[in-house]
């Protein structure tokens, strides 16, 4: 947890510095009315302050509280693969179409996770995709037709 805290604090400090750097270029206050940059700078300073507090608290942390954060085990790698798969899905979705991409995405994940027979995965995926398509598309009037397939 100690390492994780340092990373969190570091990322937030970098984020806050970026905010301040951008905000300094914004128009200044006008007749006592704060400009668009003032609040971002205040909040970014608050973030830096809290990050420093976190770092100090972590340095004082007892070794017994230093639980391990798992970022590399096989289980977590599965999560990374899932994330990557969803990013691909997100990129294909608007261009290919909802029913095609979603059905394929569901089949692959359900097969992977549940190890059920292929036909069951396909049946479940198609039914669920069509249900969502018609619920959102026809009943709730959300435009669901896009992409060169559907």
């Amino acid at each position, binding site marked *: 947890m100690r390492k994780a805290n340092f990373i969190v604090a570091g990322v937030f400090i970098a984020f806050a510095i970026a905010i301040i750097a951008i905000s300094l270029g914004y128009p200044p206050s006008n007749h006592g009315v704060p400009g668009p940059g003032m609040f971002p700078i205040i909040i970014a300073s608050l973030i830096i302050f*809290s990050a420093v507090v976190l770092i100090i608290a972590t340095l004082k942390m007892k070794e017994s509280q230093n639980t391990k954060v798992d970022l590399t085990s096989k289980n977590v790698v599965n999560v990374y693969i899932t994330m990557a798969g*969803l990013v691909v899905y997100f990129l294909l979705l608007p261009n290919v179409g909802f029913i095609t991409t979603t059905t394929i995405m569901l089949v692959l994940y359900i097969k992977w996770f549940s190890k059920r027979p292929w036909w069951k995965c396909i049946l479940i995926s198609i039914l669920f995709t069509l249900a969502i398509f018609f619920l959102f598309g026809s009943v709730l009037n959300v435009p669901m037709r896009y992409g060169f397939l559907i």
Partner: protein
Amino acid sequence: MLLEVLNNVFTIQIFLFIIMGVFTGICIGSLPGLTATMGVALVLPLTFGMEATPGILLLIGVYVGAIYGGSISAILLRTPGTPAAAATALDGYEFSKRGESGRALGISTISSFIGGVVSVMALWLISPQLAKLALRFNAPEFFLLAVFGLSIIASISGNSLAKGVLCGGLGIALSFMGIDSITGYPRFTFGNINLLSGMSFIPVMIGLFAMSQAFSTVENIFTADEVSQKVTKVWPTRSDWKVILKTAPVSGLIGTFIGIVPGAGAEIGAFVSYSQAKRFSKHPELFGTGIPEGIAAPEGGNNGVTGGALIPMLTMGVPGDAVAAILIGALTVQGLQPGPLLFTEHTTLVYSIFLGMFIANVTMLILGLSSLKFFVKILSIPKSILTPMIFVLCVVGSYAINTNFFDVGIMLFFGIIGYFMQKADVSVSPAVLGLILGPMAESNFRRALLMSEGSYSIFFASPIAWVFLILTIFTLGMPYVTSFLKARHKNIA
């Protein structure tokens, strides 16, 4: 007049419309990405051809149902169906993890009912007196209300206050994106047209809560045992009842008050109620681990807002929240103008709305309790199949809110961020609170100074402002005071 109202409301047609409305509302509310506001807007065109009373009551049914419905998915899947249920996810999902989702849903249903009824009572009995309160709110009061709201971060931060503040700061920082509401200057948009109107709040929330949770589930998807849900326990036990009756009415009142304030909606009502319940609890450290108070408070609070939001709307034509703004539109289409004249010229209609709203709450209670067993069944779907389905719901939900794929990307991005935040033991709810309240705090702070031409004394000029100042100091300082007192008590003993 009473007879007229009863005749007006107790017809099969009105009952059917209310039941339909509440049912639609529960369905819409429980789907991520479809908010109460959207649900009411979707049903609105149907009322154009209807009479005023059934039309408005249909919409109110949707409103009441949707605010309640959001809690169902929040409890079962850690996916707040509406922003109003974000606070419920904190404790609600813990129940499901233990296999007690039936119990959690039971508490949520009954608390929502109590909160709703309390607010209807307030609406009916004291709305003209309370209504004036809404007009007393000027920019400084809004700012201080938002600051008070932000002080709640202290009580929803989980194990580390510093991490909570970091996360809240992240939420506020995200809210800066888009066109500045005071000067019109585009901030942090990086030339992207999708960011001009700012970071969409719903996709961020779906990502941080639902998507990150789905990722965590994947971690153990091949090894985890399915938690069997105890379906039988829907009706609360005696000890749960005690908690509900102690918490929900107070939360309902807090919600009603938040509802009256223009621009502060059910999501704020829920968070404030949660924080106050924790503040006055004998065991604040148990909040977040799945205790009945953690559900009863936000659910009583968010349904309390429903009646509260109608108070300034019906009495003055001032919308208490986004849904009330649509209801004003619905009334105008009927040729009725919400405002002081509505009470004197259309008394029957106004009292029919009160009575109808009460019936809508009863309908919500009956529909909710009778369908709980069905909802719990969702969790009997194996995680290996349910998780991919949640992926689809998150994607479609974040797309539906603005029909914009950019929002789906935002959702996915914050899903990934949220997963790593969970890993680092950072609680995500402060970010949601910051995103809701950040713009309210900033724009009103600067608007106040614009009005006062730069003088800061405007922030101390009204009693309401002082009330919020004191409440904020109280909220932030109380934990230190109690721990100090406890320590002294120990020393003396």
